[in-house]
Structure formats: structure tokens, C-alpha cells
């Protein structure tokens, strides 16, 4: 990574910001400590001088004078101020030449400036002082130099600055190192991602054993890649299925055309061959149409065209439509509307779904059987149930029936494209309903629509104890199906 890149990297910028925040924090902390120390020292000085003045006031005048002298003698650093003034302001004794201006007599300890003659000449000193009038009218002043606090603050400040400068650079250094590390990992990940883009679906992102966010993210992304790889492989399988199902009618069509061209001796024979060809092509076409239709439904969103659909009427209509076909096969087709209810949805699509279920049921029910359409209520759902006396769907086949083109082996001879249930599943999913496939004997498929007004438990009594129906959408089946 070049220097300019380093300076531009976000991680480095963040390190810079962190260093600045750190410096600011130290400065504020210093200010706070200084304030606290000042306050503490002032309070202590005040206590000391107040005690002192009370002590002096309690002595006899002679002893007081001696005590003042003694006190000044014991103060080589000259931090103490003790002085006595006559009522007219004239100094009687002490180390002050005159009453400090602004000092209130008989007030509490206060801040004041006193002129003093030190070895460095005359200068103003900031002191805390207290003044008391005595019984004889003289004024006693006791004070204490607080420059000490300032000195302590200076020392603390210097130490802070000395610590701050290396700390700041340490921060920058750490930031630079972290951003370099991050950039390196991103480059590493990018390398792998490029390989995946190039088509290597087995490639995965690198991750360490640690608990760092990068590794966690890599594990998450790898999980997604696993899922996508499975899906892509499955789609490839679908592609093969399509190719196979299209090839079968096309191959026979080609054969018919070839034979017709070689063997037909008159127009009628040729026309017969062409008719067969058209039928074969129609079958191929119906497969592509069914696939496109499936894609259309799967890609559409809940449209604004949804409306109230009266399910009872819909069921009755489908029943009416299929009744002649059922009768031709000697199958009893009935519709039982236990409770007329309506749902929000696309009427045409729901009709297509129900028609597909009925179509399937009639197709797979042997002659003399029964197909029942029911609309009932249970577990907070409106249940649209299609039951038949056919073979039903075996437990192990329940997931496979939703695979595209899947037709159980024993049904291979029955005409059909094998996309019917896919279509139903797609329509059900679009509406946010569920598809429940019960295992045999006898077929039973339900479209379950959430309906808060359905409280009764009518659905329960029919559910086989112990055998839970397969409920779609389940994640895996509908991810691409």
C-alpha cells in the first residue's frame, strides 16, 4: 500500500480522529484537575488563616504581638502574611506596609493583591486574606500566599504535555497499522471474490479462527455462497430437465417428419404426418409456455390489482367447469362450502391454482373414485381443501412433487407437463398463503389462507394424528422454486 493510499484510507482517518479526541480529552482532564487543585488549596488556606486569626484574637495584646513576630520568623518562604494596623490605617507591626485595598474587615477569607518588598523588588502578590477588628479598634490581617497552587498546576500541565505528544503519535501509529492490516485483508478477500465472479463457485472467503468482525463476516458470506452454489446447481438440474422434456417430443416429431417424407405416397399420408408433427410441437410449446407462465407468476409482486375474492363462488365455478370431465371418468366431484369466506387476492390466479389441483386430483383418481372440494375454517385460517381417492402422494415424494417436471415414476404414462404443482406453489406464495400437502393414502392438498375471523377448529378433526402435513413455503423449496 502506497503512502497516499494510507493517508486516504478510512481506517487511518478514524485513527486520526481518535488521536484528536484523545488529546482533547487529556486537555479537558488537565483543566479539570487544575480547577479541583485550585479549589482545594484555596479552601485549605482559608481554613488555616481563619483558624490563625481566631487564635491570635484570643491572646492578650502582648502575647499577640510576640506570637506575630514568632510566626513571621518561622516563615522563611514568606508565604505567611500577618500584620496589625491602628484604626487610622497606620501599621503597628507585621509584614504588610498598608491595609490591602478592597479587603473587607470582619468578612470571610477573600482573594486580594498585596504589594510586598521581596528580594526581587516590589511586586503584587495574590493572596487569600482575612481581616478582623479587635476590641481596641486595631485591625488584625492574616493571609497566605496561594501562588503555590499555580505552581502545582504548572507542573501538572508540563507533565501532561510531555505525556500527550508521544501518546498522540502512538495513536497515529496504531491507526496506520490497523488500516494497513484491514486493507491487506480486503485485498485478500477481493482476490477470492474475483475468482468467484470468474465462475469458480467452490471458492470461499478466508477467515481466521479468531472472533474478529472480519472473520465473522467471512463466515456469514461463506454461508450465503454455500446456499447460492446449491441453488445454482439445482437450477442447472432444472435446465437439464427442461432439455430432456423438450427433446422427447422433438425427437419423435423429427422421426415422424422423416418417415413421412420418405414413405408418404399421397397428400393424405403427408397431411397425417404433418398433423402428428404439429401435435408434437404443440406439446413442446406448452412446456415452454408453462415455464414462462411460472416465471411470470414467480417474478410478479403482490399487485395493486388484488381484490376481494369470494372463495365459495370460485370453488363452485371450478367444480362446475370440471364436472363433465369427472363424470366422463365416473368420478364424483363435489364442492362443500362449510363457510363462505373471501380473501384478498388475484381471482384469476387463485382460480388457476384451484383448477390445477382439481385437474391433478381427477387425473390421478381411478374410475369410480371421488374428488371433494371443501371450504372450511380452522386454526385462524380459511382452508381450501381438495381430497381425492387416488393414490395420494407418498411421504417421501412430498417434497419432490414441487420439483419442476417431477412426475412420480408410476405416473410416467399419464399425460401432462409436470409443472402444475409448481404453479400452484408459486401462486400460493405470491398471496402469502400456505400449501399443505398431506401424505397418502388418498390425496389431500390444502391452500391455507390466514383469516383472523376463523376461530373454529374444523380443520383439526381431519388431520391425521401424528402425521404433520408438509407446509410450503419452506425455505429451501421456494428459494428458487
Amino acid at each position, binding site marked *: 500500500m502506497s503512502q497516499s493510499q494510507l493517508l486516504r484510507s478510512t481506517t487511518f482517518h478514524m485513527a486520526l480522529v481518535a488521536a484528536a479526541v484523545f488529546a482533547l480529552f487529556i486537555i479537558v482532564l488537565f483543566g479539570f484537575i487544575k480547577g479541583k487543585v485550585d479549589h482545594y488549596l484555596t479552601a485549605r488556606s482559608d481554613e488555616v488563616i481563619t483558624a490563625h486569626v481566631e487564635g491570635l484574637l484570643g491572646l492578650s495584646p502582648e502575647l499577640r504581638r510576640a506570637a506575630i513576630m514568632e510566626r513571621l520568623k518561622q516563615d522563611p518562604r514568606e508565604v505567611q502574611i500577618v500584620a496589625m494596623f491602628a484604626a487610622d490605617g497606620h501599621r503597628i507591626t507585621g509584614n504588610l506596609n498598608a491595609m490591602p485595598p478592597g479587603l473587607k474587615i470582619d468578612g470571610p477569607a477573600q482573594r486580594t493583591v498585596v504589594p510586598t518588598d521581596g528580594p526581587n523588588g516590589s511586586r503584587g502578590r495574590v493572596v487569600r486574606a482575612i481581616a478582623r477588628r479587635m476590641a481596641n479598634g486595631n485591625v488584625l490581617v492574616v493571609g497566605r500566599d496561594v501562588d503555590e497552587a499555580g505552581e502545582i498546576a504548572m507542573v501538572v500541565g508540563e507533565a501532561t504535555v510531555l505525556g500527550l505528544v508521544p501518546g498522540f503519535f502512538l495513536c497515529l501509529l496504531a491507526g496506520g497499522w490497523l488500516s494497513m492490516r484491514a486493507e491487506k485483508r480486503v485485498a485478500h478477500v477481493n482476490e477470492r471474490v474475483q475468482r468467484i465472479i470468474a465462475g469458480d463457485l467452490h471458492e470461499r472467503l478466508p477467515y481466521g479462527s479468531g472472533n474478529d468482525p472480519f472473520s465473522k463476516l467471512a463466515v456469514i458470506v461463506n454461508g450465503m455462497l454455500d446456499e447460492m452454489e446449491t441453488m445454482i446447481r439445482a437450477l442447472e438440474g432444472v435446465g437439464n430437465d427442461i432439455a430432456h422434456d423438450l427433446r422427447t417430443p422433438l425427437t419423435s416429431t423429427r422421426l415422424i417428419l422423416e418417415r413421412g417424407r420418405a414413405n408418404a405416397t399421397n397428400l393424405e399420408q403427408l397431411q397425417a404426418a404433418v398433423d402428428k408433427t404439429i401435435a408434437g410441437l404443440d406439446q413442446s410449446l406448452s412446456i415452454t409456455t408453462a415455464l414462462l407462465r411460472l416465471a411470470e407468476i414467480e417474478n410478479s409482486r403482490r399487485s395493486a390489482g388484488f381484490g376481494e375474492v369470494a372463495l365459495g363462488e370460485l370453488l363452485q365455478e371450478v367444480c362446475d367447469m370440471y364436472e363433465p370431465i369427472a363424470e366422463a371418468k365416473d368420478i364424483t366431484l363435489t364442492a362443500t362450502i362449510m363457510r363462505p369466506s373471501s380473501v384478498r387476492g388475484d381471482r384469476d390466479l387463485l382460480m388457476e391454482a384451484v*383448477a390445477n389441483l382439481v385437474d391433478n386430483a381427477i387425473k390421478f383418481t381411478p374410475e369410480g373414485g371421488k374428488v371433494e372440494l371443501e371450504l372450511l375454517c380452522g386454526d385462524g385460517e380459511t382452508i381450501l381443501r381438495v381430497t381425492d381417492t387416488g393414490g395420494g402422494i407418498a411421504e417421501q415424494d412430498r417434497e419432490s412433487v414441487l420439483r419442476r417436471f417431477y412426475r412420480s415414476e408410476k405416473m410416467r404414462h399419464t399425460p401432462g407437463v409436470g409443472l402444475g404443482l409448481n404453479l400452484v406453489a408459486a401462486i400460493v406464495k405470491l398471496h402469502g398463503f400456505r400449501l399443505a400437502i398431506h401424505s397418502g393414502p388418498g390425496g389431500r392438498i390444502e391452500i391455507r389462507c390466514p383469516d383472523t375471523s376463523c376461530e373454529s377448529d374444523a380443520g383439526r378433526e381431519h388431520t391425521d394424528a401424528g402425521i404433520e402435513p408438509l407446509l410450503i413455503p419452506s425455505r429451501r423449496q421456494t428459494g428458487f422454486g
Partner: protein
Amino acid sequence: MAKVLLIEDDCETAEQITAELIDRGFDVEWSADGIAGLDRARTLLPDAMIVDRLLPGMDGLTIIEALRKERIRTPVLVLSALGAVNDRVRGLYMGGDDYLTKPFAIVELIARIEALLRRPSETRNTTIAVGPLELDLIERTARRGERIIDLLPREFRLLQYMMEHCGQLLTRAMLLEEVWHYKFIPATNLVDVHMGRLRHKVDGPGEPAMIHSVRGAGFILRMEP
């Protein structure tokens, strides 16, 4: 001779459709892009139009909207790719026009164009008659000559639609849409079964057939064989 304007940018498809329409005795004009097509529609004033949904220059639905604004009420058949049928396209169906999804069979297209051209006028007749066949729309009864035909409600609906479009080829898809309001083609040959029953009732023994199957296309109701 009916004039049909075809607006379709795919040459292959356009050629096929044009050839078939000419064979059926139509006068066909062809435009390959939207803007030229709209101009043609204004000047030619065709009896019917076939418009592809996706066109260079101007979208097929926009052409129709433009024409309707100018109060040109030419019936239109829109060709739309499956998967591109949205509410806007479906709206056409409500507006008296029709749509067909690609891929389609050419007979389906011809049948629909003929249906568009011969849209039955809004009559207030309470009876319909085709030859000896008579329907009473109020009493909901049917008779052929002196013979009363006993029909179920759905059979009555089917026969009424066929009589309203007598002499026209009606495809299975058209019947499903118009009689049963199905917008899809079921896997089973539903229409054939229903038609078989109706035919059994309408064409009695010894009577000349009135309901005819057209191989690979659909059904037609007419008097002569």
C-alpha cells in the same frame, strides 16, 4: 375487403402474419416501428390493428392511447410477451380490445382478428336465431326447429356465445376467456368435453351438424356443412 394494419418490428413474425392474413383475404399494411405505425394508423384508418407491445420509437400501448385520444376507435389486438402482461395490458381487454401472448398459434391470431372485426353490435334482441336454432334470452330456453333443447346454465352460456359469433372460428382460449372467464389454458381438454356434451344436445340424430370442430384450432357454429 377488411384493412388490417400490422405494427411489428420482428421481420420474421411480420412476414408470417402478413402472408397468413393475405391468404385469408385481408388487405394488410405493415409498419416496423412505432412512430411510423401511428402515422399509418391515422392516414389509413384500418378496420383493425395488430400491434406489438415492444416497438422501436414508440411503445405499442402508447400508440393505442394516442389513437384513443384522437377518438379513433379502431379495434386493436396487442401482442405481448408472456411475462410482460401487466394490469395495463389486461386493461385493454376491458376496453374492448384484445391481447395475445407470444408465442401464439397463427390460427389463434386470425380467429381473434376476425372476432374483433365482427364484434356483435349491442342489440336489445331477446332472442337469437341461427338457422333452425333459437335461443330465448329471457326465458333461458333453446329449441332447434320444434325440438326443445334442455340445457344446463353453463351450456346455455356456451351456446349463446357461439350463436352470437356464428360462422366464426372460436379457439379454445377464446371460449375459456369469454364463457368461463378463465385467463389460462388448463392442462386437460376441458373445452372439448363441454363442447362434446353441447354438440350431443344441439345436433340430434339425423339432423345436419351445426357445431363443427376445426382440427387443431377450435370450433365453429354454422348452418351449412
